[in-house]
Protein backbone atom coordinates (compact mmCIF):
# COMPACT_ATOMS: atom_id res chain seq x y z
CA UNK A 1 0.00 0.00 0.00
CA UNK A 2 1.60 3.31 -1.06
CA UNK A 3 1.69 6.47 1.03
CA UNK A 4 -1.05 8.26 -0.89
CA UNK A 5 -3.43 5.31 -0.62
CA UNK A 6 -2.75 5.05 3.10
CA UNK A 7 -3.57 8.73 3.54
CA UNK A 8 -6.80 8.50 1.56
CA UNK A 9 -7.98 5.42 3.45
CA UNK A 10 -6.95 6.86 6.82
CA UNK A 11 -8.85 10.11 6.23
CA UNK A 12 -11.85 8.17 4.96
CA UNK A 13 -11.81 6.13 8.19
CA UNK A 14 -11.69 9.26 10.35
CA UNK A 15 -8.02 9.02 11.23
CA UNK A 16 -6.98 12.52 10.17
CA UNK A 17 -5.76 13.37 13.67
CA UNK A 18 -3.82 10.12 13.95
CA UNK A 19 -2.32 10.79 10.54
CA UNK A 20 -1.13 14.21 11.70
CA UNK A 21 0.14 13.16 15.12
CA UNK A 22 1.25 9.54 14.57
CA UNK A 23 1.98 9.05 10.86
CA UNK A 24 4.39 6.17 11.51
CA UNK A 25 1.78 4.28 13.54
CA UNK A 26 -0.80 4.76 10.78
CA UNK A 27 1.69 3.37 8.26
CA UNK A 28 2.43 0.34 10.49
CA UNK A 29 -1.30 -0.32 10.87
CA UNK A 30 -1.89 -0.11 7.12
CA UNK A 31 1.00 -2.50 6.46
CA UNK A 32 -0.41 -5.05 8.95
CA UNK A 33 -3.76 -4.92 7.19
CA UNK A 34 -2.34 -5.08 3.69
CA UNK A 35 -0.21 -8.12 4.38
CA UNK A 36 -2.71 -10.31 6.09
CA UNK A 37 -5.67 -11.14 3.83
CA UNK A 38 -3.37 -12.52 1.11
CA UNK A 39 -2.49 -15.40 3.42
CA UNK A 40 -6.06 -16.72 3.46
CA UNK A 41 -7.14 -19.36 0.95
CA UNK A 42 -10.17 -18.16 -0.99
CA UNK A 43 -12.97 -20.75 -0.86
CA UNK A 44 -13.42 -22.21 -4.33
CA UNK A 45 -17.04 -23.09 -3.66
CA UNK A 46 -19.13 -19.95 -4.33
CA UNK A 47 -21.78 -21.18 -1.90
CA UNK A 48 -19.35 -21.41 1.04
CA UNK A 49 -21.03 -19.74 4.02
CA UNK A 50 -19.40 -17.51 6.64
CA UNK A 51 -19.13 -18.26 10.34
CA UNK A 52 -20.95 -17.39 12.52
CA UNK A 53 -24.20 -17.79 10.59
CA UNK A 54 -27.33 -15.75 11.06
CA UNK A 55 -29.58 -17.73 13.42
CA UNK A 56 -33.02 -16.76 14.58
CA UNK A 57 -34.77 -17.78 17.73
CA UNK A 58 -31.71 -19.23 19.46
CA UNK A 59 -30.49 -16.30 21.53
CA UNK A 60 -31.95 -13.28 23.26
Amino acid at each position, binding site marked *: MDKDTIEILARHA*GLARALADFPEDVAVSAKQAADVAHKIKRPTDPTAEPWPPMKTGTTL
Partner: protein
Amino acid sequence: MSDLHWMTVDAAARAIAARELSPVDLTKALLDRIEQLDPKLNAFIRIDDEAAMAAALAAETEARSGRLRGPLHGVPVGIKDIIDVAGLPTTCHSKVRLDHMATADAVCVEKLRGAGAIVLGKLSTHEFAIGGPSFDLPWPPARNPWNTDHHPGGSSSGSGSGVAAGLFPMALGTDTGGSVRNPASCCGIVGLKPTYGLVSRRGVFPLSFTLDHVGPMTRTVADNALMLQAIAGHDPLDPGSAAAAQGHYAAALDRGIRGLRVGFVRHFHEIDTPAHPEVTAALEHVARSLQVEGAEIRNITLPSLGEFGAVNRVILQSEAWSIHGPWLSERPGDYGKLGRQRLMAGAFMSAGDYMLASRRRLQMIAEVEAALREVDVLLCASSMDPACRIEDTAEVERTYPRQARTPFNVTGHPALAMMAGLSVGGLPVSVQFVGRYFDEATVFQVARAWERVAGTDKKHPPIV
Protein backbone atom coordinates in the same frame (compact mmCIF):
# COMPACT_ATOMS: atom_id res chain seq x y z
CA MET B 1 -0.44 -23.19 58.65
CA SER B 2 2.65 -22.22 56.62
CA ASP B 3 2.94 -21.35 52.94
CA LEU B 4 -0.69 -20.28 52.65
CA HIS B 5 0.26 -18.56 49.39
CA TRP B 6 0.94 -21.91 47.68
CA MET B 7 -2.35 -23.48 48.79
CA THR B 8 -4.50 -24.66 45.94
CA VAL B 9 -8.05 -23.41 45.53
CA ASP B 10 -9.35 -26.87 46.32
CA ALA B 11 -7.25 -27.29 49.48
CA ALA B 12 -8.09 -23.82 50.75
CA ALA B 13 -11.82 -24.27 50.14
CA ARG B 14 -11.81 -27.66 51.88
CA ALA B 15 -9.85 -26.30 54.85
CA ILE B 16 -12.24 -23.36 55.19
CA ALA B 17 -15.26 -25.63 54.96
CA ALA B 18 -13.75 -27.85 57.67
CA ARG B 19 -13.07 -24.72 59.79
CA GLU B 20 -9.36 -25.52 59.75
CA LEU B 21 -8.51 -22.29 57.91
CA SER B 22 -9.86 -18.81 58.38
CA PRO B 23 -10.68 -16.83 55.21
CA VAL B 24 -9.42 -13.77 57.09
CA ASP B 25 -6.02 -15.39 57.73
CA LEU B 26 -5.77 -16.55 54.11
CA THR B 27 -6.74 -13.17 52.65
CA LYS B 28 -4.43 -11.33 55.05
CA ALA B 29 -1.52 -13.64 54.17
CA LEU B 30 -2.05 -13.01 50.46
CA LEU B 31 -2.42 -9.24 50.91
CA ASP B 32 0.86 -9.24 52.87
CA ARG B 33 2.53 -11.17 50.06
CA ILE B 34 1.08 -8.77 47.50
CA GLU B 35 2.46 -5.82 49.46
CA GLN B 36 5.87 -7.50 49.51
CA LEU B 37 6.09 -8.75 45.92
CA ASP B 38 3.78 -6.72 43.72
CA PRO B 39 6.16 -3.73 43.51
CA LYS B 40 8.47 -6.13 41.57
CA LEU B 41 5.71 -7.81 39.54
CA ASN B 42 3.15 -5.07 38.80
CA ALA B 43 0.42 -7.68 38.61
CA PHE B 44 -2.14 -5.31 40.10
CA ILE B 45 -3.65 -2.12 38.76
CA ARG B 46 -5.77 -1.74 41.88
CA ILE B 47 -5.67 -3.68 45.15
CA ASP B 48 -9.08 -3.57 46.82
CA ASP B 49 -7.77 -4.59 50.24
CA GLU B 50 -10.50 -3.08 52.42
CA ALA B 51 -13.32 -4.71 50.48
CA ALA B 52 -11.38 -7.99 50.37
CA MET B 53 -10.88 -8.04 54.14
CA ALA B 54 -14.53 -7.16 54.72
CA ALA B 55 -15.59 -10.00 52.41
CA ALA B 56 -13.18 -12.37 54.17
CA LEU B 57 -14.65 -11.46 57.55
CA ALA B 58 -18.15 -12.09 56.23
CA ALA B 59 -17.01 -15.41 54.77
CA GLU B 60 -15.50 -16.38 58.10
CA THR B 61 -18.69 -15.55 59.98
CA GLU B 62 -20.71 -17.56 57.48
CA ALA B 63 -18.31 -20.52 57.66
CA ARG B 64 -18.45 -20.53 61.47
CA SER B 65 -22.21 -20.77 61.33
CA GLY B 66 -22.03 -23.57 58.78
CA ARG B 67 -23.27 -21.47 55.86
CA LEU B 68 -21.02 -21.94 52.82
CA ARG B 69 -21.87 -19.97 49.70
CA GLY B 70 -20.34 -22.53 47.38
CA PRO B 71 -17.22 -24.50 46.47
CA LEU B 72 -14.97 -21.41 46.45
CA HIS B 73 -16.08 -20.12 49.84
CA GLY B 74 -13.47 -17.76 51.25
CA VAL B 75 -10.91 -18.23 48.48
CA PRO B 76 -9.36 -15.05 46.99
CA VAL B 77 -9.34 -14.32 43.26
CA GLY B 78 -7.82 -11.65 40.99
CA ILE B 79 -9.75 -10.11 38.10
CA LYS B 80 -8.26 -8.89 34.81
CA ASP B 81 -9.03 -5.22 34.41
CA ILE B 82 -11.22 -5.50 31.34
CA ILE B 83 -13.80 -7.33 33.48
CA ASP B 84 -16.31 -5.33 35.52
CA VAL B 85 -16.24 -5.44 39.30
CA ALA B 86 -19.00 -3.30 40.81
CA GLY B 87 -17.71 -0.10 42.38
CA LEU B 88 -14.25 -0.29 40.78
CA PRO B 89 -13.03 1.29 37.55
CA THR B 90 -12.61 -0.99 34.53
CA THR B 91 -9.68 0.84 32.97
CA CYS B 92 -8.61 -1.75 30.40
CA HIS B 93 -5.11 -0.56 31.40
CA SER B 94 -5.71 2.50 29.23
CA LYS B 95 -5.82 6.26 29.58
CA VAL B 96 -8.92 6.08 27.38
CA ARG B 97 -10.96 4.45 30.18
CA LEU B 98 -9.40 5.86 33.34
CA ASP B 99 -12.71 7.25 34.60
CA HIS B 100 -14.98 4.36 33.71
CA MET B 101 -16.68 3.07 36.86
CA ALA B 102 -18.39 -0.33 36.79
CA THR B 103 -21.85 -0.25 38.30
CA ALA B 104 -22.36 -4.03 38.35
CA ASP B 105 -20.26 -7.17 38.41
CA ALA B 106 -19.64 -8.98 35.14
CA VAL B 107 -21.57 -12.25 35.08
CA CYS B 108 -18.37 -14.27 35.60
CA VAL B 109 -17.49 -12.18 38.68
CA GLU B 110 -21.03 -12.47 39.99
CA LYS B 111 -20.80 -16.24 39.64
CA LEU B 112 -17.43 -16.36 41.42
CA ARG B 113 -18.82 -14.33 44.30
CA GLY B 114 -21.88 -16.57 44.32
CA ALA B 115 -19.54 -19.54 44.77
CA GLY B 116 -17.92 -17.73 47.69
CA ALA B 117 -14.78 -16.22 46.12
CA ILE B 118 -13.25 -13.01 47.49
CA VAL B 119 -12.17 -10.37 44.96
CA LEU B 120 -8.71 -8.98 45.77
CA GLY B 121 -8.53 -6.38 43.01
CA LYS B 122 -7.99 -5.61 39.33
CA LEU B 123 -5.09 -6.98 37.35
CA SER B 124 -2.73 -5.67 34.72
CA THR B 125 -3.37 -6.39 31.03
CA HIS B 126 -2.09 -5.26 27.67
CA GLU B 127 -4.05 -2.14 26.72
CA PHE B 128 -7.57 -3.26 25.78
CA ALA B 129 -6.20 -6.85 25.80
CA ILE B 130 -4.15 -6.33 22.62
CA GLY B 131 -0.58 -5.44 21.72
CA GLY B 132 2.16 -6.38 24.15
CA PRO B 133 4.02 -5.19 27.22
CA SER B 134 4.07 -1.38 27.04
CA PHE B 135 5.82 1.32 29.02
CA ASP B 136 3.70 4.24 27.79
CA LEU B 137 0.47 3.39 29.64
CA PRO B 138 -0.86 4.69 32.98
CA TRP B 139 0.54 1.62 34.80
CA PRO B 140 3.72 -0.38 34.17
CA PRO B 141 3.49 -3.81 32.54
CA ALA B 142 3.38 -6.95 34.70
CA ARG B 143 6.55 -9.01 34.95
CA ASN B 144 7.35 -12.71 35.00
CA PRO B 145 7.91 -14.12 38.51
CA TRP B 146 10.33 -16.75 37.14
CA ASN B 147 12.60 -13.88 36.13
CA THR B 148 11.35 -10.32 36.48
CA ASP B 149 13.53 -9.18 33.57
CA HIS B 150 11.25 -11.24 31.32
CA HIS B 151 7.66 -10.67 30.18
CA PRO B 152 4.86 -12.79 31.65
CA GLY B 153 2.91 -13.13 28.39
CA GLY B 154 -0.38 -11.45 27.80
CA SER B 155 -2.75 -9.98 27.53
CA SER B 156 -3.89 -11.43 30.87
CA SER B 157 -0.42 -10.64 32.17
CA GLY B 158 -1.27 -9.68 35.76
CA SER B 159 -3.41 -12.81 36.05
CA GLY B 160 -0.55 -15.08 34.95
CA SER B 161 2.11 -13.32 36.97
CA GLY B 162 0.04 -13.18 40.16
CA VAL B 163 -1.15 -16.80 40.08
CA ALA B 164 2.39 -18.07 39.42
CA ALA B 165 3.88 -15.89 42.17
CA GLY B 166 1.39 -17.02 44.80
CA LEU B 167 -0.35 -13.64 45.10
CA PHE B 168 -3.69 -15.43 44.62
CA PRO B 169 -4.57 -19.02 43.74
CA MET B 170 -6.90 -18.20 40.86
CA ALA B 171 -7.62 -15.40 38.41
CA LEU B 172 -9.91 -14.54 35.55
CA GLY B 173 -8.38 -13.84 32.16
CA THR B 174 -9.72 -13.30 28.68
CA ASP B 175 -8.57 -14.89 25.44
CA THR B 176 -9.17 -13.50 21.93
CA GLY B 177 -5.97 -14.58 20.24
CA GLY B 178 -4.43 -16.58 23.08
CA SER B 179 -4.46 -14.14 26.00
CA VAL B 180 -5.23 -16.66 28.76
CA ARG B 181 -2.91 -19.31 27.35
CA ASN B 182 0.05 -17.04 26.61
CA PRO B 183 0.57 -15.95 30.22
CA ALA B 184 -0.21 -19.48 31.39
CA SER B 185 2.59 -20.67 29.08
CA CYS B 186 5.08 -17.98 30.07
CA CYS B 187 4.40 -18.24 33.80
CA GLY B 188 4.07 -22.05 34.05
CA ILE B 189 0.47 -22.20 35.27
CA VAL B 190 -2.76 -23.68 33.89
CA GLY B 191 -4.90 -21.50 31.62
CA LEU B 192 -8.06 -22.59 29.85
CA LYS B 193 -9.85 -20.96 26.96
CA PRO B 194 -13.22 -22.71 27.27
CA THR B 195 -15.51 -23.54 24.35
CA TYR B 196 -16.83 -20.34 22.78
CA GLY B 197 -20.07 -19.38 24.52
CA LEU B 198 -19.57 -21.55 27.62
CA VAL B 199 -18.71 -18.59 29.88
CA SER B 200 -20.70 -15.36 29.64
CA ARG B 201 -18.90 -12.30 28.30
CA ARG B 202 -21.46 -9.88 29.70
CA GLY B 203 -19.68 -7.16 31.66
CA VAL B 204 -16.36 -7.85 29.93
CA PHE B 205 -15.04 -5.07 27.68
CA PRO B 206 -15.01 -6.58 24.18
CA LEU B 207 -12.02 -6.85 21.89
CA SER B 208 -13.54 -9.01 19.15
CA PHE B 209 -17.11 -10.21 19.56
CA THR B 210 -16.79 -13.58 17.81
CA LEU B 211 -13.36 -14.44 19.21
CA ASP B 212 -13.59 -13.31 22.86
CA HIS B 213 -13.56 -15.91 25.64
CA VAL B 214 -13.33 -15.63 29.44
CA GLY B 215 -11.18 -18.30 31.07
CA PRO B 216 -9.87 -19.57 34.41
CA MET B 217 -6.18 -19.34 35.38
CA THR B 218 -4.87 -21.44 38.26
CA ARG B 219 -1.79 -23.36 39.44
CA THR B 220 -3.37 -26.81 39.11
CA VAL B 221 -5.61 -28.59 36.66
CA ALA B 222 -8.12 -29.55 39.38
CA ASP B 223 -8.42 -25.91 40.44
CA ASN B 224 -9.02 -24.92 36.85
CA ALA B 225 -11.90 -27.38 36.60
CA LEU B 226 -13.29 -26.11 39.90
CA MET B 227 -13.15 -22.50 38.73
CA LEU B 228 -14.71 -23.34 35.37
CA GLN B 229 -17.53 -25.11 37.19
CA ALA B 230 -18.28 -21.85 38.99
CA ILE B 231 -18.26 -19.53 35.95
CA ALA B 232 -19.73 -21.69 33.16
CA GLY B 233 -23.37 -21.59 32.18
CA HIS B 234 -25.86 -20.08 29.78
CA ASP B 235 -26.52 -16.36 29.91
CA PRO B 236 -29.60 -15.38 27.91
CA LEU B 237 -28.38 -11.77 27.75
CA ASP B 238 -25.04 -12.63 26.09
CA PRO B 239 -25.79 -13.09 22.37
CA GLY B 240 -22.85 -15.50 22.01
CA SER B 241 -23.76 -17.63 25.01
CA ALA B 242 -24.27 -21.30 24.26
CA ALA B 243 -27.43 -23.07 25.33
CA ALA B 244 -25.48 -26.27 26.04
CA ALA B 245 -25.90 -27.84 29.45
CA GLN B 246 -23.12 -27.30 31.95
CA GLY B 247 -20.77 -30.27 32.28
CA HIS B 248 -19.11 -31.82 35.32
CA TYR B 249 -15.61 -30.65 34.52
CA ALA B 250 -13.69 -32.54 37.19
CA ALA B 251 -15.50 -35.82 36.45
CA ALA B 252 -12.62 -37.55 34.69
CA LEU B 253 -9.66 -35.86 36.36
CA ASP B 254 -8.08 -38.91 37.93
CA ARG B 255 -9.41 -41.54 35.59
CA GLY B 256 -6.11 -41.88 33.73
CA ILE B 257 -5.80 -41.82 29.94
CA ARG B 258 -5.48 -45.47 28.96
CA GLY B 259 -7.04 -45.94 25.53
CA LEU B 260 -7.51 -42.23 24.80
CA ARG B 261 -6.47 -41.14 21.32
CA VAL B 262 -4.27 -38.04 21.29
CA GLY B 263 -3.65 -36.25 17.98
CA PHE B 264 -0.21 -34.61 17.88
CA VAL B 265 -0.20 -31.55 15.58
CA ARG B 266 3.53 -31.61 14.92
CA HIS B 267 3.53 -29.42 11.81
CA PHE B 268 2.59 -26.37 13.91
CA HIS B 269 5.97 -26.32 15.65
CA GLU B 270 8.10 -28.33 13.21
CA ILE B 271 7.16 -26.73 9.87
CA ASP B 272 4.79 -23.76 10.16
CA THR B 273 6.63 -21.90 12.93
CA PRO B 274 9.73 -23.88 13.92
CA ALA B 275 9.97 -23.83 17.69
CA HIS B 276 12.93 -23.26 19.98
CA PRO B 277 14.67 -26.66 20.40
CA GLU B 278 13.84 -26.79 24.09
CA VAL B 279 10.14 -26.39 23.28
CA THR B 280 10.30 -29.12 20.65
CA ALA B 281 12.05 -31.47 23.07
CA ALA B 282 9.49 -30.73 25.78
CA LEU B 283 6.56 -31.45 23.45
CA GLU B 284 8.06 -34.77 22.42
CA HIS B 285 8.58 -35.62 26.07
CA VAL B 286 4.92 -34.84 26.83
CA ALA B 287 3.78 -37.06 23.94
CA ARG B 288 6.02 -39.95 25.04
CA SER B 289 4.83 -39.61 28.63
CA LEU B 290 1.18 -39.73 27.60
CA GLN B 291 1.95 -42.81 25.53
CA VAL B 292 3.55 -44.47 28.56
CA GLU B 293 0.38 -43.65 30.48
CA GLY B 294 -1.61 -45.63 27.92
CA ALA B 295 -2.72 -43.05 25.35
CA GLU B 296 -2.42 -43.70 21.63
CA ILE B 297 -0.52 -40.91 19.85
CA ARG B 298 -1.44 -40.15 16.23
CA ASN B 299 -0.15 -37.47 13.89
CA ILE B 300 -2.77 -34.92 12.84
CA THR B 301 -2.63 -32.29 10.10
CA LEU B 302 -4.62 -29.07 10.26
CA PRO B 303 -4.50 -25.87 8.17
CA SER B 304 -1.25 -23.96 8.59
CA LEU B 305 -0.60 -21.67 11.52
CA GLY B 306 0.03 -18.83 9.09
CA GLU B 307 -3.44 -19.11 7.66
CA PHE B 308 -5.12 -19.55 11.04
CA GLY B 309 -3.26 -16.45 12.20
CA ALA B 310 -4.38 -14.44 9.19
CA VAL B 311 -8.03 -15.39 9.68
CA ASN B 312 -7.80 -14.53 13.37
CA ARG B 313 -6.17 -11.20 12.68
CA VAL B 314 -8.60 -10.05 10.00
CA ILE B 315 -11.61 -10.88 12.15
CA LEU B 316 -10.09 -9.56 15.37
CA GLN B 317 -8.87 -6.27 13.95
CA SER B 318 -12.05 -5.64 11.93
CA GLU B 319 -14.29 -6.24 14.93
CA ALA B 320 -11.99 -4.27 17.26
CA TRP B 321 -12.02 -1.32 14.85
CA SER B 322 -15.81 -1.23 15.06
CA ILE B 323 -15.38 -0.63 18.81
CA HIS B 324 -12.35 1.66 18.86
CA GLY B 325 -12.79 3.65 15.64
CA PRO B 326 -14.53 6.63 17.28
CA TRP B 327 -11.93 6.93 20.07
CA LEU B 328 -9.02 6.49 17.66
CA SER B 329 -10.48 9.27 15.51
CA GLU B 330 -10.94 11.69 18.39
CA ARG B 331 -8.14 10.88 20.85
CA PRO B 332 -5.45 8.68 19.28
CA GLY B 333 -2.88 10.12 21.68
CA ASP B 334 -4.65 8.53 24.63
CA TYR B 335 -3.66 5.06 23.39
CA GLY B 336 -0.22 3.56 23.86
CA LYS B 337 1.83 3.04 20.72
CA LEU B 338 1.36 -0.72 20.46
CA GLY B 339 -2.39 -0.62 21.10
CA ARG B 340 -2.82 2.24 18.65
CA GLN B 341 -0.93 0.39 15.91
CA ARG B 342 -2.85 -2.86 16.41
CA LEU B 343 -6.29 -1.27 16.74
CA MET B 344 -5.99 1.12 13.77
CA ALA B 345 -5.23 -1.78 11.43
CA GLY B 346 -8.93 -2.54 11.19
CA ALA B 347 -9.44 0.80 9.43
CA PHE B 348 -7.54 -0.61 6.46
CA MET B 349 -9.40 -3.87 6.14
CA SER B 350 -12.27 -4.20 3.72
CA ALA B 351 -15.65 -5.87 4.03
CA GLY B 352 -14.28 -8.33 1.48
CA ASP B 353 -11.36 -9.21 3.77
CA TYR B 354 -13.73 -9.80 6.67
CA MET B 355 -16.07 -11.99 4.65
CA LEU B 356 -13.17 -13.96 3.19
CA ALA B 357 -11.88 -14.67 6.70
CA SER B 358 -15.36 -15.53 7.97
CA ARG B 359 -16.04 -17.97 5.13
CA ARG B 360 -12.64 -19.63 5.53
CA ARG B 361 -13.33 -19.82 9.26
CA LEU B 362 -16.23 -22.21 8.71
CA GLN B 363 -14.01 -24.48 6.61
CA MET B 364 -11.33 -24.42 9.31
CA ILE B 365 -13.92 -25.36 11.93
CA ALA B 366 -14.92 -28.31 9.75
CA GLU B 367 -11.27 -29.41 9.44
CA VAL B 368 -10.68 -29.33 13.21
CA GLU B 369 -14.00 -31.09 13.79
CA ALA B 370 -12.93 -33.82 11.35
CA ALA B 371 -9.66 -34.25 13.25
CA LEU B 372 -11.51 -34.52 16.54
CA ARG B 373 -13.60 -37.36 15.13
CA GLU B 374 -10.34 -39.30 14.66
CA VAL B 375 -8.93 -38.53 18.11
CA ASP B 376 -10.21 -37.53 21.54
CA VAL B 377 -7.85 -34.63 22.19
CA LEU B 378 -5.23 -32.66 20.26
CA LEU B 379 -1.74 -32.02 21.60
CA CYS B 380 0.27 -29.13 20.16
CA ALA B 381 2.57 -26.25 21.00
CA SER B 382 1.36 -23.13 22.74
CA SER B 383 4.34 -20.72 22.70
CA MET B 384 7.27 -21.54 20.42
CA ASP B 385 9.79 -19.89 22.76
CA PRO B 386 10.35 -19.24 26.45
CA ALA B 387 9.47 -15.65 27.43
CA CYS B 388 12.06 -13.12 26.28
CA ARG B 389 13.31 -10.05 28.13
CA ILE B 390 10.52 -7.55 28.57
CA GLU B 391 12.55 -4.52 27.54
CA ASP B 392 13.85 -6.14 24.35
CA THR B 393 11.11 -4.73 22.14
CA ALA B 394 12.50 -6.30 18.96
CA GLU B 395 12.51 -9.77 20.54
CA VAL B 396 9.02 -9.26 22.00
CA GLU B 397 7.82 -8.25 18.52
CA ARG B 398 9.53 -11.32 16.97
CA THR B 399 8.40 -13.94 19.47
CA TYR B 400 4.85 -12.83 20.33
CA PRO B 401 3.35 -14.10 17.05
CA ARG B 402 5.29 -17.38 17.31
CA GLN B 403 2.47 -19.36 18.88
CA ALA B 404 -0.24 -21.92 18.13
CA ARG B 405 -3.14 -20.53 20.14
CA THR B 406 -5.10 -18.49 17.60
CA PRO B 407 -6.40 -21.57 15.71
CA PHE B 408 -8.72 -22.34 18.59
CA ASN B 409 -10.04 -18.80 18.91
CA VAL B 410 -10.95 -19.09 15.25
CA THR B 411 -12.69 -22.44 15.75
CA GLY B 412 -13.95 -21.96 19.33
CA HIS B 413 -12.71 -25.33 20.61
CA PRO B 414 -11.64 -25.59 24.27
CA ALA B 415 -7.86 -25.25 24.64
CA LEU B 416 -5.69 -25.48 27.74
CA ALA B 417 -2.06 -24.38 28.08
CA MET B 418 0.20 -25.50 30.89
CA MET B 419 3.83 -26.06 31.78
CA ALA B 420 5.71 -28.68 29.77
CA GLY B 421 8.99 -28.12 31.58
CA LEU B 422 11.63 -25.53 32.35
CA SER B 423 14.19 -24.17 29.93
CA VAL B 424 17.90 -24.21 30.66
CA GLY B 425 17.45 -20.55 31.55
CA GLY B 426 14.88 -21.46 34.20
CA LEU B 427 11.80 -20.22 32.34
CA PRO B 428 8.66 -22.28 31.70
CA VAL B 429 8.01 -23.90 28.33
CA SER B 430 4.51 -25.03 27.52
CA VAL B 431 2.13 -27.49 25.92
CA GLN B 432 -1.47 -27.12 24.74
CA PHE B 433 -4.35 -29.63 24.83
CA VAL B 434 -7.46 -29.06 22.71
CA GLY B 435 -10.79 -30.84 22.93
CA ARG B 436 -14.17 -31.22 21.33
CA TYR B 437 -16.78 -28.54 21.88
CA PHE B 438 -18.02 -28.57 25.49
CA ASP B 439 -15.76 -31.52 26.31
CA GLU B 440 -13.52 -29.62 28.73
CA ALA B 441 -13.68 -32.68 31.01
CA THR B 442 -11.52 -34.73 28.62
CA VAL B 443 -9.09 -31.85 28.17
CA PHE B 444 -8.72 -31.70 31.95
CA GLN B 445 -8.34 -35.50 32.08
CA VAL B 446 -5.33 -35.43 29.75
CA ALA B 447 -3.87 -32.30 31.33
CA ARG B 448 -4.15 -33.90 34.78
CA ALA B 449 -2.40 -37.04 33.54
CA TRP B 450 0.53 -34.91 32.34
CA GLU B 451 0.51 -32.87 35.56
CA ARG B 452 0.65 -36.04 37.66
CA VAL B 453 3.56 -37.45 35.66
CA ALA B 454 5.57 -34.23 35.51
CA GLY B 455 4.67 -32.70 38.86
CA THR B 456 4.12 -29.32 37.24
CA ASP B 457 1.76 -28.31 40.05
CA LYS B 458 4.67 -28.53 42.49
CA LYS B 459 6.97 -26.22 40.52
CA HIS B 460 6.96 -22.63 41.71
CA PRO B 461 9.08 -19.66 40.66
CA PRO B 462 12.08 -18.88 42.84
CA ILE B 463 10.68 -15.48 43.78
CA VAL B 464 10.63 -15.51 47.65
